[in-house]
């Protein structure tokens, strides 16, 4: 069995895959990679199934040791990295000889980078997923973020795994967005026209109170015109809630499954991975689309991601 040793975990590094949707009745949110498109591309670079377990690094990378030879890829925000002192490029497959050291630095742009290793990280699944659920302390590596000295078991990989990289035009097409497309929320009528205009016209800033549970945005303050309490109801991933004090919160992968704040809008499926690349002080805006447009975009992206030749060289 080969392994990966954590010499330094960086700010927050967890094991993530596509998560465990389907347990809302137990109050369990799906968790999973904050940027699942990038996770998928990283895995496919090393020949893994798209949703294989990988390491999700947040804002800063870490230092990892490969005692045995390994094939890996870094995908996501631009975290500068070196393998045994030599720079390694993002979005490409690399081969590490035995006793290698991979050092991943802090990023200046974006928030998350994925380290996919051929053969995947071997973690006993919980409810069908290796994803770490930090809030409840289950899934992933002992239900927690990685620490110095942790040893992760790696799966076997084919010696024929070939080195390749992502096409620059594919990268351009899948680039994370700062203008997030949204559909109207179930309580959109709780807000007047002025508020809706402000919501679509103004720029919001991502605050430091942002994590895998949700993204808190600062100014402009939005108000519901209906001064009443919402009976708590199920809230989808990407729901944009407005609190009575005017704060705007976007529910994220470790979200509460139900909530009592009115929802003005919801980030569309194709733009959810972009939320995983937002960092504190990023400026974002919202753009309203119809449910039909959102679905067309989803189908188009779904088809694009199926195609090997459009993605890799």
């Amino acid at each position: 069995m080969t392994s990966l040793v954590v010499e330094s975990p960086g700010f927050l590094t967890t094991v993530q895959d596509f998560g465990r949707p389907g347990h809302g009745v137990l109050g369990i949110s799906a968790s999973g990679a904050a940027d699942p498109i990038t996770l998928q591309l990283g895995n496919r670079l090393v020949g893994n199934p798209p949703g294989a377990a990988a390491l999700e690094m947040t804002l800063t990378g870490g230092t990892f040791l490969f005692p045995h030879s390994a094939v890996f890829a870094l995908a996501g925000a631009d975290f500068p990295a070196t393998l045994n002192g030599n720079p390694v490029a993002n979005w490409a497959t690399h081969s590490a000889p035995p006793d290698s050291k991979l050092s991943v630095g802090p990023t200046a742009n974006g928030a998350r980078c994925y380290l996919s290793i051929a053969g995947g990280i071997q973690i006993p699944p919980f409810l069908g997923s290796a994803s770490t659920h930090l809030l409840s302390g289950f899934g992933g590596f002992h239900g927690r973020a990685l620490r110095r000295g942790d040893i992760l078991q790696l799966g076997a990989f084919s010696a024929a795994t070939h080195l390749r990289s992502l096409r620059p035009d594919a990268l351009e097409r899948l680039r994370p967005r700062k203008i997030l497309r949204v559909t109207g929320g179930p309580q959109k009528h709780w807000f007047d026209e002025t508020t809706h205009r402000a919501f679509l016209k103004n720029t919001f800033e991502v605050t430091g109170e942002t994590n895998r549970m949700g993204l808190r945005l600062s100014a402009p303050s939005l108000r519901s015109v209906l001064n009443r309490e919402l009976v708590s109801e199920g809230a989808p991933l990407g729901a944009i809630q407005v609190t009575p004090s005017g704060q705007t919160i976007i529910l994220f992968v470790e979200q509460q499954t139900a909530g009592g704040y009115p929802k003005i809008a919801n980030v569309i499926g194709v733009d959810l991975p972009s939320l995983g690349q937002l960092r504190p002080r990023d400026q974002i805006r919202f753009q309203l689309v119809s449910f039909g447009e959102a679905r067309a975009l989803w189908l188009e992206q779904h088809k694009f991601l199926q195609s090997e030749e459009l993605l890799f060289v």
Partner: protein
Amino acid sequence: MEFCPASDRSLLAYVGNEIGQAAHEKVFRLLRCIETAQPSWLRNLQPAYCSVLICFDPVQITHDEVETAVRSLAKSSKKISSVPSRTVEIPVRYGGEFGPDLEEAAALLSLSPQRVVELHAASAYRAYFLGFAPGFAYLGDLPSQLELPRLPSPRKEVPAGSVAIAGKQTAIYPFATPGGWRLIGRTPLNLFRPDRDPMSLIRLGDQVRFHPVSLEEFVNAERA
């Protein structure tokens, strides 16, 4: 039943608009119908007091088609019994360090702490749904004499097992999480264990009862 798209991949089905037993029974039956059918497009179900959020695969189906499918599935819902099949007994050490808000809650309610405990433990509650955190059950209805608003500012961390009240609801915090409900006691039971089957001690639709225990009983149960 009314439907409203919640996102490009989910639809809310509303069966009522008021928290209570009537809406809960409809939620319970609708949930069972959909769970039993397990349609291939279904990705997740998030029930609440008066609604079920239905998450679907947009490659397979549209909002309108989900609505049609759910309306058709719901036709068989009247045959489903919504009588609780289980009663869960929760031992609670009330007050003191276990329930730091009991005294203040009693004062606000113009009741003695002992009376608050008696009223809380005298009722049978229904687990309306699970949310907030894994295994966190919204239990109702609390006797009207115990209704209080949430704390003005939530605690950063509530100890796991804390028994709390807010509005018409009572609940037990399964994990140490932030929380804005008033803490009146604590149970030694583990509410959610990934290695147990079933994982959640309380499930949607269960009947739940609380009973006071001594410190000794609390400690013994904690060790068990």
